[in-house]
């Protein structure tokens, strides 16, 4: 067994834990991240400058009150949702949610195949760029009724570009053994620079200060129904995302390709034994992963910006957190994306009313991954604080399954039990 396989064995553990355990783990990780994030907010507030401290404890005063930060975050994400369910804040939250569904799915599908696709960001950039270029080029040709085709065309272009860019690190891994974590990260940098070059050299919007394309034809824009124009949220894109979620769930659970993919992710050696073409599976799952990210990029262009612009927000990295929070389960991506969408849109309100910088989301993004990665932490914590008669409840709180097998497979003489 090579070391690379071993790396993936940890991932297996992450994928394998039961549904309820995963839910508990994600919840516990979220709570822990919010607590640690609150501490960070408080302490950073002691270094910030403000007119009068907002919060003090044990003689330490801080410019930020962590409790009000989080309450502003939630109200900021939902607005007055009870009186006006289609208010601007909700639209903002759902906009972020929609984008995160795509990148979340992107990371999740690769994860299930045992691959760490950190390159969703680059694939999203390429997808967005390809989508913008396609609709800009096809726009003048497809007028009138033909304009109807622009959106699907743009999405398709995004998916293809993302898939191709995802297939590159897949092929490098399958045929040259290059670790996909490193190559995808490198390709993120490359995508950024190439997009910058392509836009500034060939598609720059005239008279623009930033590096961006011209506006796409209005027929290609995903319109904001229900939530009023200018909300940059299209219910069509959101529903499209949900359809993809269902599609990916079906693919993983009910098709032979999905079986191959899951087997490769859990135990590559067993997959090879079972007749899975490992190389093809790696390339195709990376391409699929890239396609999801590419669609995310297309939606970002067609729904949010109405053009392609360099300096793409870090939706791909957020997708890692969303996927990990979702236990890499497509169905879990929806609530996880919603949650992260709340964080992202709420943090805007937080910055406005409390002065805590929006970069807080970036901190939470990392913290959540860290906590989800250590179920053992919550298990030990549970043991410490909960009396024994409640232990079973704690075990689902993210603890790993206690081995039900007797250690005969490893603890005693059984030579076949080596793992």
């Amino acid at each position, binding site marked *: 067994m*090579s*070391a*690379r396989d*071993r*790396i993936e*064995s*940890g*991932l297996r*553990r*992450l994928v394998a834990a039961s549904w309820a355990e995963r839910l508990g783990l994600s919840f516990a990780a979220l709570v822990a991240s919010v607590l640690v994030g609150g501490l*960070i907010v408080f302490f*950073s*507030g002691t*270094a*910030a400058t403000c007119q009068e401290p907002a919060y003090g404890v044990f003689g330490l005063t801080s410019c930020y009150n962590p409790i009000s930060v989080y309450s502003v975050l939630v109200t900021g994400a939902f607005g007055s949702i009870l009186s006006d369910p289609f208010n601007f804040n909700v639209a903002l939250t759902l906009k972020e949610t929609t984008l995160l569904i795509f990148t979340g799915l992107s990371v999740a599908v690769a994860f299930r195949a045992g691959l*760490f696709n*950190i390159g969703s960001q680059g694939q999203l950039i390429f997808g967005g760029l390809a989508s913008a270029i396609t609709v800009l080029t096809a726009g003048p040709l497809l007028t009138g009724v033909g304009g109807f085709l622009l959106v699907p065309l743009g999405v398709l272009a995004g998916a293809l570009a993302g898939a191709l860019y995802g297939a590159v690190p897949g092929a*490098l891994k399958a045929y*040259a*053994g*290059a*670790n996909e*974590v*490193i*190559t995808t*990260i*490198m*390709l993120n*940098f*490359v995508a950024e*620079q*190439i997009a910058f*070059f392509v836009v500034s050299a060939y598609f720059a919007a005239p008279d623009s200060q930033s590096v961006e394309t011209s506006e796409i034809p209005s027929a290609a824009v995903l319109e904001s129904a229900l939530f009023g124009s200018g909300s940059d949220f299209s219910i069509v894109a959101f529903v499209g995302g949900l359809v993809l979620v269902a599609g990916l769930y079906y693919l993983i659970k009910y098709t032979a390709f999905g079986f191959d993919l899951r087997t490769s992710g859990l135990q590559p050696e067993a997959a090879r034994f079972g007749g899975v073409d490992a190389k093809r599976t790696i390339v195709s799952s990376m391409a699929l992963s890239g396609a999801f990210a590419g669609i995310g990029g297309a939606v970002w262009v067609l729904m949010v910006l109405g053009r392609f612009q360099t*300096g793409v927000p870090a939706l791909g*990295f957020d997708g*890692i*957190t969303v996927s*990990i929070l979702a236990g890499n389960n497509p169905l879990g991506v929806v609530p996880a994306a919603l949650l992260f969408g709340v964080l992202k849109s709420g943090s805007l309100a937080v910055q406005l009313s409390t002065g*805590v*910088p929006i*970069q*807080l*989301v*970036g*901190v*939470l*993004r*990392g*913290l959540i*991954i*860290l906590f*989800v*990665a*250590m179920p*053992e*932490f919550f298990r*030990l914590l549970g043991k410490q604080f909960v009396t024994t008669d409640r232990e079973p409840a704690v075990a689902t709180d993210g603890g790993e399954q206690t081995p039900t097998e007797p*250690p005969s497979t*490893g*603890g005693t003489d059984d030579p076949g039990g080596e793992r």
Partner: protein
Amino acid sequence: MSVGRLRSALNGGLRHALAYGLAGLVVLAALYGLVFPETMVGDLLRLATSKSTLGAALRLAVPIACAAVGGIFAEKAGVINIGLEGLLIISAFTGVFVTDAVGSVFSIPGIWVGFVAGVLASTLLSLLFAVVCIKFRADQIIAGLAVWLIALGLAPFAATVVYGSVNTSSVGTLGTWTIPVLSELPFVGPVLFDASPTVYLMFLVVGGGWYVLNRTSFGRHVRASGENPKALDTAGVDVTRVRYLAITLSGVLSGIGGVGLSLGQVGQFIGNGQTMVNGKGFIAIVAYLFGNYNPLGAFGASVLFAGLDALQLRLQQIPAYAVPSSLVQTIPYVTVIVVLALVGHTRVPSAAGDHYESGED
């Protein structure tokens, strides 16, 4: 000879073939440039061998080489530290922040106080990583990514809190130390002995790293811990302790690299996008893979990657070649990918990535 045999023979000698091939190409290009100084190759040669480019290459190699040596210790001990990037980011920021905020302590210049603080920050973060991986048995890759993403979020967050922008204000650099006599040597003098103190530190890190790994019992324990931790455990050496030490060491060394970047070269922290570290931590990983886990080899690879970066920076300054700068900037990253694809099948320490607990069978 069959295709299969040929392929396996190729794989075996690939690293050498690659190294010789690269060297050969460089020599050929250099000869061509010497003979035809008026051509573009001639220009490139002049550029590449100019004192300023070589000096820049060494300076730019500091964060990569230091993080790479740190990464070698962690991975040789059996813990893949993919969070080197995060360690560089946190130390780069903390170094500048503390220099700015604290100033001199006990008549130690503020910038050196900041230097120590930056290294300390990276060490603490690596200790967190160690606890998460060893005590809480987290998956090493995911925990490493978390370390990276936390630093990537935290540094710009803190910068914005304190400075109102993701970039800090400027605090000046450590300057250069000119070593008398040696710096007078022709050509090598000004490059090697009239450099930033962080460059000297890098030499110390590389040489010291090699010595510790190959000549001390700690180094042997580190290697055994990554190859067969159980052998070490049954020989009565505490594997957990060795791993904690190795990871912490990777934090200290990466910290030197990170502070070397912000205080040694730029004098401020730049926090937009991927921050000023810009993937150097990941490049460091490829550097030590290319260097086959040998600190000296990793240093060579670091200088190669940094040299490409330095050349790229210089190329941008020459208007004669209308190569778009954004494309030139991709060169180091693409090279890293190519190198990784060619040496992808390195002999990774057998137990790297594995959790180990004494008494587990």
